[in-house]
């Protein structure tokens, strides 16, 4: 696959970003004056308790919502809407795949909008589905698949889009532990094999520490960045040995403390 690469060491940046919903007495300030730089090639995990504004922050970074004030830039260029260089995997996979399209069509569909020829769409979609291990489900409908498989389809759709940045919103939140481990390793594989810059939003501290080269803790109301930690675990991770390392255990209790504050 030919994937466009980023020229700047900072893939995404948010400067002085605030976001509120509503106006007058109903106004809710969700995010206030937030600064964040996502380094190219990193897996960055955003952790925070439920309702703190993680989805809101991700949508701002993806260009799906515009900040009330401040600016989001991609590769140094301000963004005002969705861009080709960013693919998104959503929190609710059941609602984000088109139930009337088969798995292959779901994955190929975004490429149609880009004017990619039909034969290339099909081969790119099939290739992406092979990476996520779903080659045998190409002609099923999404609702015929398990939750974990549906989320794999959503990941394949992002992969076939061949964007250098991938944003994931609590991608494995509603899956069982076994499936979750498998998909976490799939994310690490995507970073290793394709050099994709990945942002994973999660409320699971273990997942954040296991996946992340960097863990960013979001908290408060309106929310801001509470802590920003480089994870000293190296790039190769293993579900059993990494989770048993003292550095892992020490880091997860550190983050847990911050979230409980």
């Amino acid at each position: 696959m030919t994937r466009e690469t980023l020229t700047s060491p900072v893939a995404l940046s948010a400067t002085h970003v605030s976001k509120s919903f509503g106006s007058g007495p109903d106004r809710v300030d969700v995010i206030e004056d937030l600064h964040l730089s996502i380094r190219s090639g990193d897996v960055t995990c955003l952790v925070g308790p439920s309702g703190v504004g993680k989805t809101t922050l991700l949508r701002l970074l993806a260009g799906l919502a515009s900040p009330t004030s401040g600016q989001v830039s991609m590769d140094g260029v301000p963004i005002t809407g969705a861009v080709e260089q960013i693919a998104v995997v959503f929190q609710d996979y059941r609602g984000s795949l088109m139930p009337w399209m088969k798995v292959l069509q779901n994955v190929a569909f975004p490429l149609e909008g880009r004017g990619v020829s039909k034969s290339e769409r099909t081969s790119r979609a099939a290739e992406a589905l092979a990476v996520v291990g779903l080659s045998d489900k190409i002609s099923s409908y999404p609702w015929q698949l398990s939750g974990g498989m549906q989320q794999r389809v959503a990941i394949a759709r992002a992969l076939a889009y061949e964007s250098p940045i991938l944003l994931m919103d609590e991608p494995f939140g509603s899956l069982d532990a076994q499936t979750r481990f498998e998909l976490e390793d799939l994310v690490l594989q995507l970073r290793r094999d394709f050099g994709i810059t990945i942002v994973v939003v999660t409320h699971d501290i273990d997942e954040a520490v296991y996946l992340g080269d960097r863990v960013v803790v979001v908290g408060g109301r309106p929310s801001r960045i509470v802590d920003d930690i480089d994870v000293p675990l190296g790039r190769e991770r293993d579900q059993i040995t990494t989770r048993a390392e003292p550095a892992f255990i020490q880091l997860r209790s550190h983050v847990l403390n911050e979230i409980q504050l």
Partner: protein
Amino acid sequence: MNSRSYSPATSLLLQAWLPVSLIVLWFLLSASSTSAFWPPLTEILSAMGDWALSGELWNDAVYSFTNYFLALFLSLLVGLGFGIAIGLMPKVGRVLDPFLDFLRSLPVVVFVPIIILSLGIGREPKVFLIFLACVWPILLNAIVGVRSIHAGIFEASDAYRIPLRLRIPKVVLVGALPQIVVGVRLAITIGIVMLVVSEMYGATEGIGYFILQSAQRFQLSSAWA
């Protein structure tokens, strides 16, 4: 498959017993009828035969159904077009919803004399009347259909920058299709009713005109036909 299955003839009989027995009952009860308002079924059938033989049935039917399909086509075009546009724009929808509910609740029949009076008695007012009756179920169901599409579908379409020319046919129309079918079915039935009603006022041709003519001349067997 070990559930009970019936032969085609048996299942036809199972489905058709009610209409068939009603017709037989009508036949029996009306055979001896002397009431001017309930002509015997035999007479109705022979009147229908005359109507068909004289060629008038076909002329009337062709005239009526041209109006009907023209109107249905127009209401499909307008109902789906506006329905999808309104469904896609929640703010516009919130402003328009009370008006749509009000307009929908007006019975179209009250417009019949007004429109005939203002547009005359040609083909256009009839097509317009049928259109007016058919467009509401299509429009309202298209709006509901678009709104029933999961928000995540639109979010994904935004994120992957699906252009409007693909989004309308492959996301919005397909997503709203089950509800649109409900609307079109309703329109098909309502259209038939309006077709007859529209021709009862100031018409010179058509099925409704035939019914009315027959009724006014006390040719009740023809009207029933």
